[in-house]
């Protein structure tokens, strides 16, 4: 199956969501077989279906002053932050043609991130019982998806730039007391988001289970 790749660059969260929904319909209606959106977002806080508003620590005035918007959205999971230092990856895949299994898909996404990070020398892993990708006890990638008619949207974010981690202090990420890390923090070196982006796209293309 052909994988359509769309790089949106730096976009507002809402614009990225609109693009996801448009591609979702294309995949659902079998106009295209599957799509992968990559982008970065202006600072934004999103609350998933399991979100507890207590996990938003910053006041609305504080968020307004920082120019950070908040959105309540239909993905799974609690609260998270996205900013220009993260690579966003939105796989719009039709699980009817892959495997109709939610956890299989979540574990596959984790696997793609883990193998991609290893290409850069970052040893990341899963933590049993928790979705996402971790470097020791710190989280480097977050995952939250939505599935309609077995077509997926929303997806994953990888923290790349270390200077974008500070805004996680505005929330309790995923409703847990966890520390976030970034690729740059692990490598103690500057890394371009475009490098991670190219590697992630390559990994998705190489993974045979996505081209069944």
């Amino acid at each position, binding site marked *: 199956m052909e994988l359509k790749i769309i790089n949106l660059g730096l976009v507002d969260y809402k614009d990225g969501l609109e693009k996801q929904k448009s591609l979702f319909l294309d995949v659902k209606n079998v106009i295209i077989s599957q799509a992968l959106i990559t982008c970065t977002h202006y600072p934004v806080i999103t609350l*998933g*279906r*399991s979100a507890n508003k207590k996990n938003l620590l910053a006041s609305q005035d504080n968020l307004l002053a920082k120019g950070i918007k908040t959105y309540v959205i*239909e*993905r*799974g*999971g609690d609260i998270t932050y996205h900013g220009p230092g993260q690579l966003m990856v939105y796989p719009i895949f039709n699980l009817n043609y892959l495997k109709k*299994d*939610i*956890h*299989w*898909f*979540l574990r596959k996404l984790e696997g793609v991130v883990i193998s991609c990070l290893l290409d850069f020398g970052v040893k990341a892993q899963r933590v049993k019982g928790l*979705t*996402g990708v971790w470097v020791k006890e710190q989280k480097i990638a977050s*995952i*939250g*998806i*939505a*599935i*309609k*008619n077995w077509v997926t949207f929303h997806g994953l974010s990888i923290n790349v730039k270390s200077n974008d981690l500070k805004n996680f202090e505005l929330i309790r990420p995923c409703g847990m007391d966890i520390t976030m890390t970034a690729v740059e923090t692990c490598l103690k070196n500057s890394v371009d988001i475009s490098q991670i982006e190219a590697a992630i796209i390559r990994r998705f293309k190489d993974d045979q289970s996505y081209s069944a």
Partner: protein
Amino acid sequence: MTKVILPELSEGIPKATVSYWFFKVGERVNEKDGLVELTTDKATFNLPSPCSGRLSEIIIPEGETVNTGEVLGIIEEDQKD
């Protein structure tokens, strides 16, 4: 009368939480319309209606948890000629 049953979502996911009913009791639904949204820890999942008819009963309301194989609601099917 057709029971809306939570299917197996994945190995190792025995239950899910009802996060949203797209229809109220008494409303008409079409087969394959998104009927109810369910949430597991990191995923939301839309369960389509198994048939066309009228949603006559919601057994598991929003915010409550349901196990695989349990009945979420009831649809009175359209009368067939």
